[in-house]
Each structure stands twice: as structure tokens, then as C-alpha cells.
């Protein structure tokens, strides 16, 4: 029982009739996966919407304690990584595995930079100064002292609960992306990709851009509350 009769290329799996069909299936599958992701983050955004509605003052205060500058830099970093990723897809489509490899390296580097900035300038300082919901909550250090005056301390904590969970979930998606990127880099090194075979890169690109889009919303929603 073999299906070689239909296999135009070695990489067309046995149950597909053609590379065309396989590609279509791959693309559809990826988009459905992203639709699933939309709803996954969507649940969080829904929580965000309700609590912002209920605690407008806490949102103002919380947002004022984040640095628009750091956020802006990070947004730029992420947009650039999306750009390099898009280039990567182009190089995969044109079969330029060397440049693809470089594009992936750039994307990975930008992604790591994003995480590094996030940790160094946002998570860690806040954590040290007690701007972290829970038992250690106590934003009374010199940087965030003004938070202590906010009347609605509960709502303020809620702002930070969501801030950590949502940006953390976003970061987690990036970290998963790093792993896949490394695999793609190895494959690019082996000259795997070409005009007939670039689905893996393209689909990963979709994932990466999606993660970028999530940040495009997180940025104004947390940093730019006015």
C-alpha cells in the first residue's frame, strides 16, 4: 500500500494528493490555530475590558507608573522583529537559505532584546519595589511612592495582576517562538527551504506576527491609559 503515485515531491505526505493540497491544508490549519489564539488572549482582553470599566482611576494611576519610553522602545523592537521575520519568509520563498538564516538570527536577537528590556527595566525593578500584587504588595519605595496614595489600592493591584499576566502570557508566546526559530535556523543551515518548500517558515511567520499584534494592543492598553 503505497501512495507514490500521487507524490510529486518527497515531502508531500502520503495522504495528500498534491503539494498544493498540502500547502492549503497547512495554511488553513495555521489560521485556525491563530483564531484559537485570538480567543485565548481574547478571554484576557475581556477581563481587562471589564476591570478597566470598573476601576478607571486605578488604571490611570497604574498606567502612569509604566514608562512610555521603555514601552515605546520595546514596541519598536518588536515591530522590527516582525519586519525581519517577514523578510525571512521572503528569503525562504526565493530559496535564499543564507539570508533566511540571517533574518532568523535578527528576529531572534530582537525578540531576546525585547525580553531583556522587559525584565531589566520593567519586571525586576517593579518586583523589587513591591509593585507586585499579593502578599508583597507595597509600592512605597521611592520610585513608585505615588502609587501608595491611590485610593483604590485593590483596583490598582488588579491592574498589575492583569499587567503581569497579559504581558507574561505574551512573553511566554515569544519564548515558545524562540524554540521554533532555532529549529528553523538549523533547517535553513541545511538548505531546506526553497520556492517549493517554505511552509514551515511562512507558518511560523504568521505565528510571530500574531504575537506582535497582541503587543500592538497591549501597548496602548497598559502604557497609554489617559
Amino acid at each position: 500500500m503505497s501512495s507514490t503515485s500521487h507524490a510529486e515531491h518527497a515531502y508531500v505526505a502520503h495522504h495528500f494528493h498534491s503539494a498544493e493540497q498540502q500547502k492549503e491544508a497547512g495554511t488553513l490549519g495555521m489560521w485556525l490555530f491563530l483564531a484559537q489564539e485570538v480567543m485565548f488572549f481574547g478571554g484576557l482582553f475581556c477581563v481587562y475590558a471589564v476591570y478597566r470599566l470598573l476601576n478607571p482611576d486605578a488604571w490611570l494611576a497604574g498606567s502612569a507608573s509604566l514608562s512610555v519610553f521603555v514601552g515605546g522602545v520595546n514596541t519598536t523592537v518588536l515591530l522590527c522583529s516582525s519586519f525581519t521575520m517577514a523578510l525571512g519568509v521572503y528569503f525562504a520563498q526565493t530559496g535564499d537559505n543564507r539570508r533566511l538564516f540571517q533574518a532568523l538570527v535578527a528576529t531572534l536577537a530582537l525578540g531576546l532584546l525585547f525580553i531583556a528590556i522587559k525584565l531589566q527595566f520593567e519586571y525586576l525593578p517593579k518586583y523589587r519595589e513591591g509593585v507586585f500584587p499579593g502578599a508583597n504588595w507595597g509600592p512605597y519605595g521611592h520610585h513608585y511612592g505615588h502609587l501608595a496614595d491611590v485610593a483604590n489600592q485593590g483596583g490598582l493591584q488588579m491592574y498589575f495582576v492583569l499587567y503581569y499576566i497579559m504581558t507574561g502570557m505574551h512573553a511566554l508566546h515569544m519564548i515558545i517562538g524562540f524554540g521554533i526559530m532555532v529549529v528553523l535556523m538549523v533547517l535553513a543551515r541545511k538548505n531546506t527551504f526553497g520556492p517549493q518548500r517554505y511552509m514551515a517558515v511562512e507558518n511560523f511567520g504568521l505565528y510571530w506576527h500574531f504575537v506582535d499584534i497582541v503587543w500592538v494592543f497591549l501597548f496602548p492598553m497598559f502604557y497609554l491609559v489617559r
Partner: protein
Amino acid sequence: MIDFRVLPEKASTFAESVDPLYWFLILFVGGFFLVVCAVVLYWGVKYRQRPEEDRPSYHPHAIKLEIAWTVVLVIIALGIFVWGSVLFFRAYDAPDDALEISVMGKQWMWKIRHPNGMRETNELHVPVDTPVRLTMTSQDVIHSFFIPAFRLKQDVLPAKYTTMWFKATKTGEYPLFCAEYCGTEHSTMGGRVFVMEPEAYAAWLRGEGGGEAPDDVLAAGRRLYDRLGCAACHTAGVENRGPLLEGIHGTTVEMTTGETVVVNDEYLRESILNPSYRVVKGYAPLMPSYKNQLEDEELMNLIAYIKSLPKQQVAIAEVK
């Protein structure tokens, strides 16, 4: 099996108005089921495959039929919806003159307090033929106050007030349950509702029928009002810092967003605990939050006190 009934005894105006809908639904769905069964059996026998018969397969094209039954179903469904919703509207807001009783749920008992401060646990005494409004909250998890004889139930939540109102129509003793699963002893969290003649209720309120000693809710509320310094802002003449609270209960106020809100217990509670959520039009969001400074019990006293403040002529003039 003596005295078997499908629905329990009915003892409230709501029960009386909703029971016909139950009966209609029972007959409608039961009838539908019987018709389905009858048709299946009849055709099932009539059209069973017989070797001697050659009955070619049937090719239905019954668009008109399909549309007809769809339309009929939609009409019936919407009819039922309207019927039920009208009842729901009625069950929702209490008449203005309702007797106010507060209910506190906690694992696993109901604490009840009457307007004069009389308290009881797992029992609720109410006068017959009088609208009663329960303002309810919970100290821990979600519970649900359920009186089958009244056909009413309402979840009781922590950090939030929910209300339920009824007008009992028949004196007697009726079971009371907690209907929302709330942990180990959920099934024992219940008690009895006593519907009494108004005189008997009045006597009971005076402590003649047992129950715990009443405490003075309004005095306690007034003490809090003074201690927390509410009057610093909510007094006529203080440059309009905060709106006047006299006679505010039951009125409609407009928010900065243009939304209008009816002042009820839940709104008062929210105004005290989370004042910036909805800000009254014409005022700045100055008021501090009193969250975590007030016990549930204290908050209820405070609110009772605010509600007791009489409507004043000045107040109305001031607001204008």
C-alpha cells in the same frame, strides 16, 4: 404519596402569576413529546420494510412545509419568551414601600436582620400581604437564597449587594434553601420562612416570639457617618464638594458619562467602596474609597442610616 403535587405550595404573588406558565410549558412540551412518539410508532409500523412490498424511496421537496414549521416555532418560542419576561420584570424591582430586610450568607448559615435591628439565623419572619425587599450579601463564597413556595431565588455574592422582593400571600411555614453550591455543608444551609399576620409580625419584632435582641442600626450607622467624616463633604454649603445625601435613596442621578442611575443599596455600596467607578455629574472624583475600612455589617448600617436621612427642602434647592 398523599398530597402529591408537581409544584410546591404557592405562597407569593409571584408564584401565583408564574404557575400558569409552568403548566403551559408542561402541557406544551409533554404534548410535543407525545406527538413525536405517536408519529414514530405509527409510521414505524406502517412503513416498515416488507419483502412483499416494493415502495420506492420518497423524494421530499417540502420547502413550504419547512418554512411553515420554522415560522410557527419562532412565533411560539417568542411568545413563551415574552410571557416569561413580563413576569421577570415584575420579579425584579420592589415597590417603593417595601419592608427592608437584610440578609447575610456565610458558610453555612443565613443571618437575617430586620429594620428595627431584630436578628435571626436560618429563619425569616415576614408579614403577609406586605411587599418585602431583601438586600443580600455574602461574607465568603456565593450562596443563593431560595424559597420554593415563592418561586424565587437569588444568588448572594461577596462584596456586592443583590436584592429580591416578594409579597407573601399565605401565612404558614415554608422551607428555605441555599441553592448555590457553597462547600461542605451546602445541603444543610437552609431553614424556614414564617409568613405571619402583620400584628403577629409586629409582636415578633418586639421580641415576643424569641429571636435575638435587636440592636440600633440607625444609631450605629450615624456613629460611623460621624467617625468617617462623611459630612465633611456631604453637607449643604461646603462649596458643593459632594452631593447631598438626604433623601437620595430611590432618586435617579446622572453620571458624568450621561448615564443615569437609580440610587439603591447596591449603588450606595458602590459609591462608598469604589466612588470613582461612577462619578456624579457636576462633581470631581474627590471622594476616597472606603474599601477594606468597613465590615459588611458596618456598611449595611451606614447605608441604612443614609437611607433614613429625610428628604429636605434645602437639599432639593441645592441640587437644582
